[in-house]
């Protein structure tokens, strides 16, 4: 009997079995496509809402020593920053996150001001708190504006052109495309996609090898004349089909939910059919690597439980490149397209940012990805030929 027919027979049986388990289908195939839109729409709306309110809302700023600098306080009020009575213990308030930002006006402020020396004002804040960044920046900007205004008046009073004080006029021209800027906000998207590609078929793979072994159905199966390599490949093929169907559903739900977004950070992400097709092609080697790796693990352990204990570790793998790139951002280089997880991460971002992927990058990526899959397949096939595999009890 030829191997291809065995492969097909085994794959068909595995898929029939899994599709008869309604709960697994709901959890494995439908849950994430239903959850992602909620996540995307929700996070988008939340981020936008927060930015808008923080940028425009009135800031209540506790000012220590407000009576020393009444003009400064009056100026802040014109910038929608209202001074409040100073707290007892300002450091503790910041540390306990009760206040985002507090202003302290130095006691010798008035003296320095009259002498035309730089008068000290101190902004108290916690730089590790993300949500206080916007208020702190607003206060700082208002103070600088006041400083410049007063400085210019002083120079004019001495008959000096205030522009002499600034030798450079610095301007910015931001060349980032709007798509790329959105891409920064999409950093989590590759992780979600890589994770579902990598472990989407996990249940089926573990069940088809470690589970069958535990339920003792592997022994009669391996006593048939069908080749072990073909049986294993059938199981891998079934898991790949399952994983790809899950991915397709997830991507289609992305397409739908991004289509609904008409404002906020996710507006205009590329979800054309071409982009979806590219994403599927990018994730195909990941599905293969995931299923062969899990088959290899399942064939080397004694029980399903033991196989499942690897999951926590495996779930961390796809997040590594995201973390590394967060700490140490680097420019795309060719070797990166041969590194699993990192390659997928970069390629997905490129697709979402509508950048062109060169044919050389495609070739390196697909060659390395499918090559690694084939290598894992060979190791797994080796394990499948071990005597212990069939013996469950």
């Amino acid at each position, binding site marked *: *009997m030829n191997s291809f*027919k*065995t492969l097909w*027979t*085994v794959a068909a*049986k595995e898929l*029939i*079995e899994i599709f*008869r*388990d309604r709960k697994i289908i709901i959890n494995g195939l439908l849950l994430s496509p239903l959850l992602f839109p909620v996540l995307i729409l929700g996070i988008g709306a939340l981020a936008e809402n927060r930015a808008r309110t923080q940028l425009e809302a009135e800031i209540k700023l506790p000012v220590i020593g407000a009576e020393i600098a009444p003009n400064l306080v009056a100026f802040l009020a014109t910038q929608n920053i209202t001074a409040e009575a100073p707290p007892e213990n300002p450091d503790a308030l910041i540390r306990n996150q009760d206040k985002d930002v507090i202003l302290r006006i130095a006691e010798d402020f008035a003296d320095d001001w009259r002498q035309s020396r730089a008068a000290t004002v101190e902004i108290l804040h916690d730089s590790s708190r993300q949500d206080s960044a916007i208020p702190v920046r607003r206060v700082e900007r208002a103070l600088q504006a006041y400083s410049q205004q007063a400085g210019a008046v002083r120079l004019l009073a001495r008959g000096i052109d205030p522009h002499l004080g600034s030798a450079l006029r610095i301007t910015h021209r931001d060349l980032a495309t709007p798509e790329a800027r959105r891409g920064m906000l999409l950093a989590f998207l590759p992780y979600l996609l890589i994770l579902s590609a990598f472990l989407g078929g996990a249940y089926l793979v573990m069940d088809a090898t470690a589970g*069958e072994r535990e*339920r*003792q*159905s*592997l*022994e*009669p*199966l*391996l*006593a*048939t*004349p*069908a*080749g072990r390599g073909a049986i294993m490949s059938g199981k891998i093929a079934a898991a790949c089909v399952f994983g790809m169907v899950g991915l397709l559903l997830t991507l289609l739900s992305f397409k739908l939910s991004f289509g609904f977004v008409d404002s906020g950070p996710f507006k205009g992400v590329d979800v054309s059919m071409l982009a979806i097709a590219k994403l599927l092609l990018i994730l195909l080697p990941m599905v293969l690597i995931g299923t062969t790796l899990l088959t290899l693990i399942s064939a080397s352990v004694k029980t399903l439980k033991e196989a499942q204990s690897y999951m926590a570790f495996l779930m961390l793998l796809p997040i590594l490149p995201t973390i590394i790139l967060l700490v140490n951002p680097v420019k795309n280089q060719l070797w990166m397209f041969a590194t699993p997880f990192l390659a997928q991460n970069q390629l997905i971002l490129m697709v979402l940012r509508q950048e062109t992927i060169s044919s050389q990058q495609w070739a390196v990526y697909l060659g390395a990805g499918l090559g690694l899959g084939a290598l894992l397949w060979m190791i797994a096939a080796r394990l499948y030929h071990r*005597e212990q595999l*069939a*013996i*469950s*009890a």
Partner: protein
Amino acid sequence: MIELSDLHKQFKTKTGPVAAVAGVGFTARDGAITGLLGPNGAGKTTTLRMLYTLMKPDRGSVRVDGRDAYKDAEAVRRSLGVLPDARGVYKRLTARENISYFGRLHGMDEAAIRKSTNRLVEALGMADFIDRRSEGFSQGQRTKTAIARALVHDPKNVILDEPTNGLDVMTTRGLREFLLRLKGEGRCVILSSHIMQEVGALCDHIVVIAKGRVTAQGSPDELRAQTGETNLEDAFVKAIGSEEGLGA
């Protein structure tokens, strides 16, 4: 015909190597039922696993219809119908789907599978559950499904590991008739059991195994003569060397 000669198999365990099988040899003729009798842990299952090519013996050889079971494993597996100790019926498939899955793995076409399945359904009395999913099957229904699955390709040699394990009296009787029918068709049938009455009632040739070795073999009459006991039960006890594990 199946010939086993001087089989040895050792397993590594934490407490050191254990010789599961240490010198088992016998010949099973076509058109006869050969029974492996021995207490639990005597090495019956390991012997059968070496027979159906799932384990490689450390020493000795297995020949099925003249073919070496290791050099020609695929052809040997094709000519064997195997009911392992672990039945392993797929719960989410119906009995019929379980059977046709194995038929396809044996390379049969759909028409041949259908014909063979109908024949086995009739012979084993599976008509009332053949199209039900095997989740929730009784032990007897599971065993019948597993036997039908093992015989779908109409093998000349039939290996059954403890076929009546866990079955009620009526199902056991039905199964015995089925085994006699296989013998009548000229097949070579090997079964293992730890139940003396069963082996005594069914088998033409009995191989008594204890502690991995053959301690006696022959027809029921020959065994009585060898051990000098007129009662078959006493003959078994003497052949095994203890009363351990000989349950009814």
